[in-house]
């Protein structure tokens, strides 16, 4: 019981911290990090509610399966969000004068 409580409360605190950071910080990478921390908190709560101490029976596998798929999806979403952030940065930089050369030309020369 105590273990369930410890991990649930940790998940809750992580969720709150991530949520707060997600709103007040402006840097896109930090927002993505905050979303990751938030999702971790949610997973922690989900798995902690299914926890049973060693030797007192089997563990409910359904939350584990849910969290397993959740982790994989969250990683792919993170990757997509990172690429989106990069694109936003590249396009917004290239619209400014004087910064186009650094961002754009090397990519052209690679091709």
């Amino acid at each position, binding site marked *: 019981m105590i273990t369930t409580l410890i991990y649930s409360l940790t998940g809750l605190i992580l969720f709150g911290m991530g949520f*707060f950071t997600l709103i007040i910080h402006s840097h896109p990478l930090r927002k993505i990090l905050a979303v990751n921390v938030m999702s971790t908190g949610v997973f922690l709560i989900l798995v902690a509610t299914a926890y049973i101490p060693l030797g007192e029976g089997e563990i409910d596998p359904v939350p584990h*399966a849910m969290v397993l798929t959740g982790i994989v999806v969250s990683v792919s979403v993170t990757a997509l969000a990172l690429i989106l952030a990069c694109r936003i940065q590249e396009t917004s930089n290239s619209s400014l004068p004087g910064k186009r050369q650094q961002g754009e030309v090397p990519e052209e020369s690679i091709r």
Partner: protein
Amino acid sequence: MSRTGKDHKQLDGFQRMLLLLVICMVMLLGYIIWSTPGNKPVLTDAVAQMQEQSGVESPVTAVLLNFRGYDTLLEVMVLLLAVIGTWSLTEAFFPEQVSEISPVQMGVVRLLAPVMCLVAAYLVWQGSHLAGGAFQGGAIFGAAGVLMLVTELPGLRTIPVPPLRLGLVLGPLLFTGIALFCLFITGDLLGYPEGAGGWLILLIETGCAVSIGLTLASLFAGGRPDNEFQGKNSPVSRTVSGDRS
């Protein structure tokens, strides 16, 4: 020394109000968690009863690929969608100055990439009776791809696109195909016929592991493959470029 950005001195009125709201929300959620009667295994017995029929010994794998198979099917589709989104956004990212590969790095890749593939296969096979499965195996397989991408092996930029696409959709196609096959045989979507569950699950897991590995590697590459090769191989971009010229 390490100044945190959440120093209370730096917060203005709006942020303070927000902090208060977040704390209220967290306390409310905490009360809900506190008052929920926990530690009651809800579905453990239900899973344990059907474990015999599922064809695998690991309960998590049974839930993932048999009892709630359509969830996993949709999830594989989500991964495919992530790759489609990435490919439609930008081209693959390769740093402008490619540094030469030092012998140590080359040695690490030569040593680790095959071992990673081996461990991936081991995890997929192990998924039927212990921890492991398509996702874990696929992740390790993807890590091997990422290792090669990071080292910028010269062959990687000329990878032909059609096999890559085939590999990406192999898992979803196999999964959907088997689901429809089961629909014809037993009348249920993903209702495996008696006794064949284990083999079908292993087949699905292998296909999905390959797809997930390629998906993660392409997500790391950060975009579609170079246009040059795409133009040569795919009819779509050929017509587009033809229209443009």
